[in-house]
């Protein structure tokens, strides 16, 4: 079932404007270059606390945030890209990873517990999946759009299922997203369970879909679901690096970034995409250099 084109809709990229596509791509480049810099800083010993990189999975937060604007965000570890895609202050995240008091969580959160009042992103306590019932309570209290992000492993937590059921019962404005990289550290989904998160959501009466991490496909379904919350999207993606740290076990199942660039070329945006790539790389590299020089 897992594949680079699972659930793909032919020519879906053409249903978005050039601006929408390029803005989304710029976010992806920002996140990707940021994660590469984290890797460098970690490998050189400048980051001393554990890191959880979303390298390879950037398309999910970037596509969702392109459509689902300014929700309250409840994510967990591997949340750098959700923070960045939702316009979190880049310098504050660098400082957070460097353990500085000027970090977005004053150094308390590190990589796993990113918090930002400015973008309404709530920190995580480190226990997988707790963000889902907490997001449910927040949406119940505010009735405002909420984004609740889980992984394929945290989705298995019993209290996640209880919260999904309650969100369905109370018709809460929550977009549930499962960033399904098929791995709980190194144990794959089929070893852990015989059921699908999207089926569970569906059984609760929550509209759901299971798709690959093509960003236009994600944007399409996000757009469709926005008027019909709560909704659930299970997105197959590839975590290129280790669960924690920067190691890599072999070639990735697919390289979404390369596939996106191919599609941008097919759309005729090759030059503009290259320009965005170069510009974001220079910008992110410069910010890292600037913050590292302050150590």
């Amino acid at each position, binding site marked *: 079932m897992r594949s680079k084109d699972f659930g793909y809709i032919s020519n879906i990229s053409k249903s978005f404007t050039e601006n929408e596509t390029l803005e989304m791509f710029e976010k992806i480049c920002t996140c990707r270059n940021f994660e590469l810099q984290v890797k460098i800083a970690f490998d050189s010993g400048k980051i001393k606390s554990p890191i959880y990189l979303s390298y390879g999975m950037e398309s999910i937060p970037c596509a969702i945030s392109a459509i689902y604007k300014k929700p309250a965000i*409840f994510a967990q570890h591997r949340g750098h890209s959700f923070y960045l895609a939702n316009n979190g202050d880049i310098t504050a995240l660098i400082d957070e990873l460097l353990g500085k008091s000027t970090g977005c*969580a*004053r150094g*308390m*959160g590190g990589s796993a*517990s990113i*918090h930002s*009042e400015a973008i309404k992103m*709530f*920190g995580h*306590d*480190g*226990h997988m999946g*707790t963000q*889902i*019932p*907490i*997001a*449910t*309570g*927040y*949406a*119940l*209290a*505010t009735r405002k759009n909420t984004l609740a992000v889980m992984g394929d492993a945290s989705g298995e937590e*019993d*209290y*996640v*299922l*209880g*919260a999904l*059921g*309650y969100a369905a*019962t109370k018709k809460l404005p929550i977009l549930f997203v499962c960033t399904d990289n098929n791995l709980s550290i190194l144990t794959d989904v089929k070893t852990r369970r015989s059921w699908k998160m999207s089926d569970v959501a569906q059984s609760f009466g929550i509209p759901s879909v299971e798709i690959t991490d093509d960003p236009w496909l994600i944007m399409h379904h996000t757009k469709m679901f926005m008027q019909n919350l709560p909704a659930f999207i299970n997105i197959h993606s590839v975590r290129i690096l280790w669960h924690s740290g920067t190691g890599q076990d072999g070639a990735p199942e697919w390289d979404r970034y390369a596939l996106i660039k191919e599609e941008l070329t097919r759309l005729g945006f090759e030059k503009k995409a290259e320009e965005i790539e170069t510009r974001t790389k220079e910008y992110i590299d410069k910010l890292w250099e600037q913050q590292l020089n302050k150590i």
Partner: protein
Amino acid sequence: MTVAETIKKITREHLLKNKGLALGQCLTAVGWVGGTVPELKQEEGLVELSMADVAGGGIAVGIALAQRRPIYIVRYQGFQWYNAPMIINYAAKSKDMWGIPCPIFIRSIAMDGGIGPVASGSHHSMYSRMPGVPICAPMTPKEYVAAWEYFMSHDDPLYVSEHRRSFAIDYEIDDSIQENPDITILAISSTRLNAIDAIKTLEQENIKCNLIHLFWLKPFEVTEKIINAINKSKCGALILDGDFENGILKSLAYDISQNVTKPISILGLEERSAGFAPQCDNLPPSAVKICNRIKTLIKNI
């Protein structure tokens, strides 16, 4: 006004005037949680949760993050084992971690045995081990109001250990300090009532007892009154209802012992599981049990 009526009034006002929320399981069932829950609807802020205990605690945390100051009603303290995780691991840490207050008024309701392992003890200890959660155990209307006023003037989650025996109480309970006492008893929650009964019996046997009622368990202040009372006695005893001795009791006793010159003993639940049959139950120290322990303590000094 009874404690139950006080709780009901506070809740009603919080929901209707403060836009607060009260939530829990089976709130509208027969009795409305011992008559402590106002008969309001969801639109007015009374929220029925599903029976998913762990998720329910998380939902309370999310409501608190939205600054709606929820009253989270847990009908049996034993259910805290499943309701507490996200309150303890998120709400209690939220201010330290991210600078965001997460105030929840946790109504944790105890009763004296009769339901086997379902709601057996060790509930104060569960919360007391995590920084960031004050704990109190009100037994009178004024104490309940004090707990509420603390909650509304602070931004911490507050663990309020209630006891069903308090619901009918419509009077205040004062400390009792004697001249030349044999012992100073410090009692918590429903054991305060048992201690009063025990003292009546002990007085008939010429054993003079001070009785100090403890309302705040955390932070716990070893007051001059406690210090003087114990130091003027032969010894002190600390008594708790729904908790085992290897928990908060020993922590409190340690704090007291650092400030007094006399030995402190503790009396709580026995170190065993409770069963359903009366002979298998594990009840809070009764008046008889308190009497017997105190007589033994004094005899051995």
